[in-house]
């Protein structure tokens, strides 16, 4: 297991290479599949499309402190698409917010890892999410509050592409631009699949980049599985002034397991035991 001292995370832009990030992401994907399969419940597909971005945020970019989750100087991460929390829980455990064994508590009664993020039960969760379209507004509020305090902490938020169908996403987007929130970076996990099928068939959000540009955001498009591109986009956002940044990350639902990739059916369905074995083998686990 790749581990770092908590002090490793307290400065931004850490010296960590793509090979290491990729290896960590592979472990996170295995966690996602095991957690969801154990309870035969949860959302593995979107968690796997979000994994590389969340890993890059917590291991490379964000200033945070796993030993002191409420550290005043921390950057915040809001998972607005709360259903993909297995990816976040795994990253929080692996960076040291809580022991890895806790991952077995996912979605279980008396467990600390709820089906959707609960800031009261899980250390490192900045705001409770789950109902789509609300987390991005909370992220806007955090960014406004930090500006009021003249803090240089930043707020990162991930939304889903299906989630962008919620009107409240656009209310929040309007407000972020109106209040010149250059301390806010939102990442759109654009895997183009939602429960009922492709986003452009269910209810198109496209052209997404143009929409956020029209809302006054700085918009960057990247391949959400290319660590170099993720890193560069996050760094570019640091240089933007008076505008929030939207990173449209082209991703693949179920990324990392051949038979799960680009399949809407793995949105909210866990792998049965025999497929789990096969998937873990693909991810390099000796089973």
């Amino acid at each position, binding site marked *: 297991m790749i581990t770092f001292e908590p002090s490793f995370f307290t400065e931004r832009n850490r010296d960590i290479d793509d090979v290491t990030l990729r290896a960590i992401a592979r472990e996170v994907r295995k966690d996602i599949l095991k957690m969801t399969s154990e309870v035969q419940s949860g959302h593995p597909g979107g968690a796997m499309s979000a994994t590389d971005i969340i890993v890059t945020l917590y291991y490379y970019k964000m200033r945070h402190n796993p030993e002191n989750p409420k550290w005043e100087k921390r950057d915040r991460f809001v998972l607005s698409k709360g259903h993909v929390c297995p990816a976040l829980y795994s990253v929080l455990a692996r960076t040291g917010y809580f022991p890895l064994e806790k991952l077995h508590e996912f979605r279980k009664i008396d467990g600390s890892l709820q089906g959707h993020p609960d800031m*009261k039960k899980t250390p490192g969760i900045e705001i409770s999410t*789950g109902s789509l379209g609300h987390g991005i507004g909370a992220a806007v509020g955090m960014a406004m509050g930090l500006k*009021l305090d003249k803090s240089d902490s930043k707020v990162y938020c991930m939304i889903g592409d299906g989630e962008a169908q919620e009107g409240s996403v656009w209310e929040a987007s309007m407000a972020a631009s109106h209040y010149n929130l250059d301390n806010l970076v939102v990442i759109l996990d654009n895997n183009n699949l939602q429960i009922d099928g492709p986003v452009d068939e269910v209810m198109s959000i496209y052209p997404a980049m143009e929409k956020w540009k029209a809302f006054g955001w700085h918009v960057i498009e990247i391949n959400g599985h290319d660590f170099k591109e993720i890193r560069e986009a996050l760094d570019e956002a640091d240089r933007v002034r008076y505008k929030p940044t939207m990173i449209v990350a082209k991703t693949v639902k179920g990324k990392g397991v051949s038979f799960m990739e680009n399949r809407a059916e793995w949105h909210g369905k866990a792998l049965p035991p025999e497929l789990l074995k096969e998937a873990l083998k693909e991810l390099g686990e000796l089973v």
Partner: protein
Amino acid sequence: MEKVSLRDAYGETLVELGKEDDRIVVFDADLSGSTKTAKFAKAFPERFFNMGIAETDMMNVAAGMATTGKIPFVSTFAIFGTGRAWEAVRQTICYPNLSVKIVCTHGGITVGEDGASHQALEDVANMRNIPNMRVIVPADDVETRQVIRKIAYTEGPFYVRLTREKFPRIFDENYKFEIGKGHVLREGEDVTVISNGVMTSFALYAADILEREGISIEVIHMPTVKPIDTELIVKSASKTGAVVTAEEHSIIGGLGSAVAEVLVENYPVPMERLGTPDVFGRSGKGWELLHYFKLDEKGIVEKVKKVLERKER
């Protein structure tokens, strides 16, 4: 009785709080002139945030800001704050139990001429059903000032329902508001009348009228609908043996429902609810509408007589 503005009292108290504590921040959704948060906006522009006509976002943003250690007050009209934005209040404010204070004006039928679309007759019900949320319906300006100060420094979410219309002042400087406590304003023997908002002043009128007819009613002002003062309700009901509730709200889900829940589980007695009877409002002048829906002393007297009949049967 002198008629006083609850929303002006709110706006003025916000300014006082803002002077004392820079954690106080205020949000509005393009209604700051009406909700009176404009007073705060003028005094502390850097701590006032107009979110535009986007109530759902306003709730989410206020919740996010609360996590950075601020004390957000959020205002709009009652129907938008508790209806349009309901699920944001539930998900982002109440579920994580954040200290966001939702203070809405234009609750009830006394919104007046704007009519049914703007008359919140469901707001108390909407907020009462969410875990962690506490719900307060003040009667006058004196009480409003105390409520606003109290909730600012009590952890967790609150909903306070204020009104457009001015109401009679019924309290003086000796009044002391406490969260979750009802107040016996007048002791009586035959029927307990439990009310809040403008209906408490009507309950006091009704008590005078009924006294002349030889009927003694106990008037309890119940500003906190949640958590409700179970002890006081049971104590009074066990003395009088009959209860009437009166509120400027639908009879479904508000004060009447809260009192009924207490009685049915603790001390069942005949009970009548005065409120709007599961209907929408309509245009008219505020006070005209109160009388139209019998939300006045006559309506209370009628209900008291009806419950007395049931009690004596």
